[in-house]
């Protein structure tokens, strides 16, 4: 079935505007995605009709808020095909999800001399929490290398695993290169050595079907705002037995069963990890976002975006002074590039003057930039509401960049 992008685009009110005198071309989806009207309506609807605290009150509004909040959890559970709602922990985003695992599972299980394995392609949010933990524990952070195209080197990765390896934490889709790692294989290899795996799905969930049971990963984290949902809400999925065994993350209300000054009994999953009044509106908004992409179909979204990526890659490849960084076989809709003698920031400013929004810089992946010997890239990142015309506009604006600097 054809993907009616013109119709889809109408669902995103923000896209209908001009920027610097040009129709907005939004190609910064890996930073954050735009929100469909249904998500905006869910937020407005919640605050207009149901706003109340959850799991607290006996009154009607509190019950409605709680119902919607928990329904959203179930939707998200189905979306990633987790087994049980108890395995879906609301967090602020990918960063908090990783920090939660580092501070609970990590502090409980990582001792002096133990090892954690990440990859060269990690976002700083999947480096720094582990560095902090390693520093505290005297543990060792090991880095699985990639090749020049941005593909994970599986043999080298496996060779890093020893009897002291306690966790593998790896990006599912690279935010700076678009590389999709063979996640299932990464998990299999780790499990063969008895090592659990966390996958950072921030750039994955919005662009392809993610099935945590099929992947068999132990933890999976992602942010709502890159999945067409609100900011400030994200998900940590964890296998129930692991989550059960982990100590709580933050102390406070909601995460307790009973409190005396002498002793506190913790609440059951998922609430054990959800101290304080949560981001209720955000959760409901994320539920609406999941409904939206489900209705479009993740397979159709993936197929359409692959077509766009192919088209964009072809267009940019024709520009002789431009080099695409990240050419893995399995790739998501990210076009990272550098240009001869022109710094990415200057590219970004000139594109902005043409109404085109891209990201420039190190993409919070400085070690990866070092791997390629570059300070930064310009990155156009795609979503299903982008069109071939958007990519034509990008290519034309890049010609303008060359003209300004000639």
């Amino acid at each position, binding site marked *: 079935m054809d993907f009616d992008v013109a119709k889809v685009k109408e669902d995103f009110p923000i896209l209908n505007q001009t920027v610097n005198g040009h129709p907005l071309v939004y190609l910064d989806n890996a930073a954050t995605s735009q929100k469909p009207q249904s998500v905006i309506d869910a937020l407005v609807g919640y605050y207009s009709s149901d706003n109340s605290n959850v799991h607290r009150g006996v009154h009607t509004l509190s019950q409605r808020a709680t119902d919607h909040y928990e329904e959203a959890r179930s939707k998200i559970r189905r979306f990633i095909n987790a087994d049980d709602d108890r395995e879906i922990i609301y967090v602020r985003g990918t960063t908090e999800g990783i920090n939660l695992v580092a501070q609970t599972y990590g502090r409980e299980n990582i001792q002096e001399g133990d090892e954690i394995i990440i990859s060269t392609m990690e976002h700083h949010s999947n480096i720094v929490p582990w560095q902090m933990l390693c520093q505290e524990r005297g543990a060792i952070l090991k880095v699985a290398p990639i090749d020049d195209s941005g593909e994970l080197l599986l043999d080298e990765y496996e060779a890093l695993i020893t009897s002291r390896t306690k966790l593998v934490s790896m990006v599912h889709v690279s935010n700076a290169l678009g590389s999709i790692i063979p996640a299932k294989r990464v998990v299999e290899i780790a499990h063969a050595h008895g090592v659990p795996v966390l996958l950072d799905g921030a750039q994955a969930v919005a662009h392809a079907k993610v099935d945590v049971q099929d992947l068999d990963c132990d933890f999976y984290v992602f942010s709502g705002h890159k999945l067409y949902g609100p900011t400030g809400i994200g998900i940590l999925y964890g296998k129930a037995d692991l989550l059960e065994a982990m100590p709580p993350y933050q102390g406070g209300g909601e995460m307790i069963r009973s409190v005396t000054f002498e002793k506190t009994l913790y609440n059951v999953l998922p609430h054990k990890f959800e101290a304080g009044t949560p981001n209720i509106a955000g959760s409901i908004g994320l539920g609406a976002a999941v409904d939206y992409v489900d209705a479009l179909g993740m397979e159709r979204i993936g197929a359409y975006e692959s077509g766009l990526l192919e088209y964009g890659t072809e267009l940019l490849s024709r520009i002789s002074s431009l080099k695409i960084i990240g050419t893995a076989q399995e790739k998501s809709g990210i076009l990272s590039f550098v240009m001869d003698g022109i*710094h990415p*920031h200057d590219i970004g400013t000139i594109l902005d003057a043409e109404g085109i929004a891209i990201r420039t*810089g190190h993409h919070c992946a400085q070690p990866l930039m070092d791997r390629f010997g570059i*300070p930064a890239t310009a990155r156009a990142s795609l979503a299903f509401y982008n069109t071939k015309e958007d990519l034509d506009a990008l290519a034309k604006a890049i010609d303008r960049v060359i003209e300004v*600097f000639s």
Partner: protein
Amino acid sequence: MAGLNDLYQEILLEHNSKPHNFRSMEDATQSAEGFNPLCGDMITVFLQVADGVINDVSFQGSGCAISRASASMMTQSVKGKSTSEAEETFEAFRLMMTDLDAELDYDTLGDLESLSGVVEFPTRIKCAVLAWHTLRAAMDGQDDAVTTE
């Protein structure tokens, strides 16, 4: 929005492609490093100061056209000046970068005036002032790297 041509003036592009005093300095009396953590730009400014006079100044690092051209122009501007004159030039430059309506001191600014278009691009102002903050740190003998944040 001001035109791109106001931003990327020919003189800026020249300084970008052929920056002046773009070298390390072995006999520097002082130096400092500057970073823009948001974009990863980095610069080192080297100084040779005697009796309060900047006898030589150079820079190295990587950055966008604006930061590179700004650093290049800065070295030309402050070379031979006293450190207090260099401070005054920084103040004049900073005024130009932050206040659209400011009355500019063209005598002090000289070529630096060609960077006035940057004020219209708020996200790029930090690129233009990074070299100057780093110069000040070098003059002050500051050990910690300066950042734009």
